[in-house]
């Protein structure tokens, strides 16, 4: 059994209950969802769901194949992390008592989207790894809270389906 994180990318009809149908299979195969992004596309007709799943690789493949049985699913593909261009957005609330905002911006290129007396909220977009590193660099004690979106991903041109 090989275990790793895989990206499950599905294109589904944009109607109520579709995520529920997808999640059923993910749960059945005992996979953990580490990230989930979704948004409407194709003029509102469809919805792109991108899941980062951890667990048995064969189980992820099984889900992708069996999803095609679900009536509302248009496409389902799995990708390894190296096969996709993946981006995630994170909002990080930072305690500014011990760290200067200017320094943070200089070091990371993040955007400050809100600032208060003792804290700021920084927005950073990048790969999951870049966000991890950003948080690490701030130092655990300076980070008050984090909200991550989970990755959105599209296959690279060189990735075969």
């Amino acid at each position: 059994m090989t275990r790793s994180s895989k990206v499950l990318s599905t294109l589904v009809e944009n109607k109520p209950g579709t995520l529920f149908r997808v999640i059923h299979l993910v749960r059945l195969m005992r996979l953990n969802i580490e990230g989930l992004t979704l948004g409407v596309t194709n003029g509102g007709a469809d919805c792109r769901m991108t899941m980062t799943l951890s667990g048995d690789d064969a189980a992820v493949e099984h889900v992708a194949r069996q999803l095609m049985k679900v009536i509302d699913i248009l496409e389902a593909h799995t990708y390894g992390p190296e096969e996709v261009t993946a981006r995630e957005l994170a909002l990080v609330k930072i305690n500014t008592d011990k760290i200067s905002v200017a320094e943070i911006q200089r070091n990371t290129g993040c955007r400050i989207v809100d600032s208060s007396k003792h804290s700021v909220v920084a927005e950073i977009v990048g790969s999951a790894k870049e966000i991890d590193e950003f948080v690490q660099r701030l130092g655990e004690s300076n980070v008050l809270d984090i909200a991550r979106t989970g990755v959105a991903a599209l296959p690279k041109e060189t990735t075969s389906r």
Partner: protein
Amino acid sequence: MTEKMSGARATVEALEREKVDYIFGMPGGANLPLYDALWDSKIKHILVRHEQLAAHMADAYGRVSRKAGVCSATSGPGATNLITGIATAYADSSPMVAITGQVAKAMTGRNAFQETDVIGIATPVTKYTLQPLSAAEVPFAVKEAFYLATTGRPGPVLLDLPKDVQQEEAEMTFPESVTVRAYRPNVPVDPQDIERAAAMIVKAERPILWGGGGVRIADAAQPFGALAELLMAPVITTLQGKGDFPENHPLSLGPIGMHGRAEANKLVSECDLLVAVGVRFSDRSTGNFGEFAPGAKIIHIDADPTEFNKNKAVDLSILGDANVVMGMLFDAVAKRITKSKDLNNNPWLKRVNDVREELKGIPAYKDSYADLSGPRIVKRLRDVLPPEAILTTGVGRHQMWCEIHYQVLRPRTWITSTGLGTMGFGLPAAVGAKFAAPDVPVVDFDGDGSFVMTEQALATAVEEKLPIISVILNDRSLGMVEQWQRLMYNRHYIGIKFPNTPDFVKLAEAYGAHAKTVGSLDEFAKAMREGLRMDGPTVIEVPVSPLDDVFPFLPPGKGIKDTVYGSSKEMAIF
């Protein structure tokens, strides 16, 4: 042309347009508007005593008639009672439309009386679920339900109707057809696949054709059998596929599997090409996946692409309707075969006959059983029934004895729950089958354990004057489980004995059915012939020993070549 009517009336109108003859079901608070709309409809309502039975009836009706069977229940417990029957239909790809009442939209999520999230419960065991939120959507939802239930790989579709949607009035449009964008049931067959398959088939020296439920569903028995005869290839089936090919045909080896025919289980390990049609490589058919047909190239033909390489990697998969694919394949193979094979000098058929001879003497085939034993009763049953008779079963030893010893001669005459293995399926299935084929004898071959799970179907059979027969092999035990406890759990018999099993004659008579206990095979045959002439249901109880084990037996998890043919002594190794 539109017409103003209620959602309930539109449901019934739409069902009539789908040419629905029967609804099997039970009314309750949340589907009363629907029942009221049935008042002046041509559709006949068949009343059950428990909603699970309605689902099994609709399921069997669908398997026999090719149309979607329709069942209905109210919200809450009515809907949840349907679930086992819906799951049974899903596991065996049976076309069904299940209509549930639901609490009014405004009451949703308030834990209203008899509120259950039936869509949440049913999603994993249905092909699709639909819940129209306005009356005007109802005709489209009904059309879509029937379209999805009956096309591609069939299956049950749940239609959940909130009570206010049933009551609301709207101008109705009834569509002639619907499209579901992400659903493509009729992908054209790739001619290149056919050419590749034909080349593999012609090259093979030891081919076997393997038929499953998909052959029946696609009505592909004719081209399937024609290809077997063209190739002089032996035919095996799944348990669900019994009847794909006449089991009294010289090329028929019978079903493979946990309780398959010994010759089928043995020879499938020796073939060099397996043409699998409408099967899903169920563990109960194949045993250990890795050890199944190890020396064979496998061609898999199915209408559902998600079945390809799911359990077993195959060499070529062909997506399409089995009837179309087999017809094309027959033509392509016929073109390539320049002269007919020399039958007298065909080493594969010689090997097949040698294996048959060799296995004739195994205990399971030797008729060493008592007079009143499962195998003998099953064989006599075949003698008594005409080829077109429909046999339904429960789940257990009686079903497995049918698998091994009952020769199914025509498609759609063998109605049994294989995927889910639902005890209690037999009697309500017989009721549903009888409505689908009123001119054909219908027999439920059952065990006492299965029968008591759904015996209330007798009430419906009596009311509807259905001349069906239930044969109950009564061992006062859960015989199949007893066999496993005997052979694999050190004879720790627990939870299997029915010391206070009912007097089945009195029980049947209390419902108004005819009933008899028989003490010999001849009495059994006589009771069967009488039962076939009755104007209502008959129950025939046959007392049998709980000690007769079902063999051959492929122990769970083992490779199919390790099938045990005979006595319990051989089982000691497991």
